[in-house]
């Protein structure tokens, strides 16, 4: 017994010592872990924590107010207006922009000649930095000197108020998005390249014409990508801030003030950080819920 037992106590500590502290992975991962903790998780927790306080920057965290920031939100017409606007924007973006890259990609798939050139040209509007694009469109919309009203008058459609018209401002903000979809188009297009050519050949032999093939084979094969893109689309649209801030600043008559603008204004204009934290948390919950539903639905499909 003894000779067998003896080496054990010696070996064990050595092995477990080596196993316990894997220095290399720790060194490789530490910078990233620190960065993510500091710039993602800590702020997220802080946002939720803040929402329970009448937060003071000078003397944090200020007075504990429980849920009154939330009850303030739910009783303020501003919040409901912003929530309504956010969902309205979501719908308008969906109607005007979501389908565009899908159609572009499916049709591009039929194009052989100059295919690459067209891909470059589709990407070209993406080269205009987003902020620059919004400023450009603001200038195009200008009711006095803008090109758009001039062109519309030229073809006899009359001029519009665009960004100055509360009924129209939302649509005017979304329209530039129609042309900025080059990247999503490429995502769909690269997905289409993965369709096995046998499927298409088989459909051909079955007598399906090109239009029929498009509907029965090409489009269904995109379903998965469309699902993923839709999740990204939801959160992207929900958080959109730049075009509203740059083109209208929330006006006219608060018709383009969304939740994200409300977060910005309540924190950096009104300095009500607690309220901003509460709105942030509500947004986070809404997005999480929508994404969860979407994932569930696409799984059952």
């Amino acid at each position, binding site marked *: 017994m003894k000779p067998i037992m003896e080496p054990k106590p010696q070996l064990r500590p050595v092995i477990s010592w080596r196993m316990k502290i*894997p220095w*290399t*992975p720790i060194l*490789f*991962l530490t*910078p*990233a872990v620190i*960065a*993510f903790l500091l*710039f*993602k998780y800590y*702020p997220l927790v*802080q*946002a939720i924590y*803040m929402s329970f306080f009448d937060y003071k*920057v000078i003397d*944090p965290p200020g007075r504990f107010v429980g849920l009154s920031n939330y009850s303030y939100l739910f009783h303020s017409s501003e919040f409901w207006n912003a929530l309504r606007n956010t969902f309205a924007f979501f719908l308008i973006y969906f109607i005007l922009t979501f389908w*565009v890259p899908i159609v572009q990609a499916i*049709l*591009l798939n*039929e*194009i052989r000649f100059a295919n*690459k050139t067209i*891909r*470059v*040209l589709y*990407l*070209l*509007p*993406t*080269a*205009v*930095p*987003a*902020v*620059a694009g919004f*400023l*450009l469109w603001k*200038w195009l919309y200008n009711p006095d000197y803008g*090109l758009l009203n001039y062109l519309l008058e030229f073809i006899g459609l009359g001029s519009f108020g665009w960004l100055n018209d509360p009924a129209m401002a939302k649509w005017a903000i979304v329209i530039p998005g129609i*042309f900025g979809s080059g990247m999503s188009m490429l*995502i769909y297009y*690269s*997905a289409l390249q993965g369709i096995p050519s046998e499927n298409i050949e088989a459909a*051909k032999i079955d007598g399906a*014409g*090109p*239009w029929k093939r498009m509907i029965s084979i090409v489009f269904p094969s995109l379903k998965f*990508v469309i699902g993923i893109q839709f999740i990204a689309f939801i959160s992207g649209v*929900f*958080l959109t801030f*730049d075009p509203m801030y*740059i083109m209208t600043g929330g006006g006219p008559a608060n018709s383009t003030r969304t939740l994200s603008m409300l*977060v*910005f204004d309540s*924190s950096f204009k009104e300095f009500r950080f607690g309220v901003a934290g509460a709105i*942030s*948390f509500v*947004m*986070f919950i809404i997005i999480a819920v929508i994404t969860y539903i979407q994932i569930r639905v696409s799984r059952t499909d």
Partner: protein
Amino acid sequence: MAARSRIRERGELTVRIVSYSVAALFIVVSVIPLIWMIGSSMKDNISIYRFPPTWIPQTPQAVTVTLNYDDTDLSKPDEYELDAMKAIWFTWKKMQNDAIGSLAITGVKEGIVVYKADMPSYKFTAGRPEIVPTQLFNDTTIRNKLPIIRERGLTNFEWMEKGESYDGNTVLSPELPELSTAVLSKFTDSSHITGQVMDIAEKKDWRRLFDNYLVLAQFAGGSEGSYGFPHFLMNSVIVTFASILSHLIIGGMAGFALAHLVRGRIGSGLTLFFVATIMIPEIAILVPLYLTMDKLHLVNTLWGIILPHTAWGIVIFLFKGFFEQLPGELLQAARIDGASEFRIYWWLIVPMSAPIFTVVSVMTFIAVWNEFLWPLVIARSPSVWTFTVALNDFQNRQSMGANVVMSSLVIATIPLMIIIITCQKLIEKGVSFTGLKG
């Protein structure tokens, strides 16, 4: 195949026609604003606000005025310089509702050219708020402003020590073009200018089409410590490249560790820790992130803009995905040879993984170059503005016409345009990485 493709299917032609025309429609409609942007960026301050708008900018007119100093008691160069400045700045200020490309004055005394002075329109635009803020003119104004004009090099003045003899017109031609007539009337109305107009001429100068671009650089060194557009572009370049570098180093190492060094429950837990942050919306953590930066004393620094970019879940996700595909045998072989993980990473993995590093660089470039909200929040003082924040500020500046704003947009577009055209393939690759797996 060739024979078969000649036998057309039914509907093939319509598919083709529809495909091409839809593509053409989208492209034309999306390129029109870009052409309009470039055209507007070359317009002068007046025609930019004209309705109906024109597509092609007018070539600006360079006006040359010859002043006669016979029978005047000016003798010192300084006195002539003052007179030339009055002639240029006062006349131009009165004519700011006309489009002048440049204004040049030639001073002649007793048949000899004594000085030449000229100013292009971008320098007038840049100096106007400081030199001639009002329509009120007198001798003391220009005497006080002369040091500023000299210091900022707004107006060229060349004193002709050994003047050549003047051999141009000495009598005004009876039929002058429209702009020259207007300039002439301002000279004859003025009581401040000593010299008498002897000749006036105008000619088109295409170089002045690009003056709006030059105005952008001229804002630097202005009175209120303002910065020129190049300064903001430089900030953006620094922020973008620092972010790319941080992704390549921090993200690459973490991705490698997740792919090859950590396994089992800890590995998947860590992966989730990183990748789940993709779900955290930027706006939701905006305020606490700002307060964190405030605690670290990084508000109003470029570091404050850069550091949060070190934590992008998608980057680690991409690196991990790529490194996992690398053949494990190579790693094993290197380990058996006794190479440390650091050596393996730097000398084996990194050289093999050029595609993923370039893809991440390009994707980061596009995202960070475009970024607006975070710099807007964290960069409170103009010295650390990125160009996106500056552009947003430009649209509210009174002194900046829409034509100058348009030219700043054109300049801001160029870097991204170069990246997109040259890196088309990489972008497509990156997009299929992110789009299909994410």
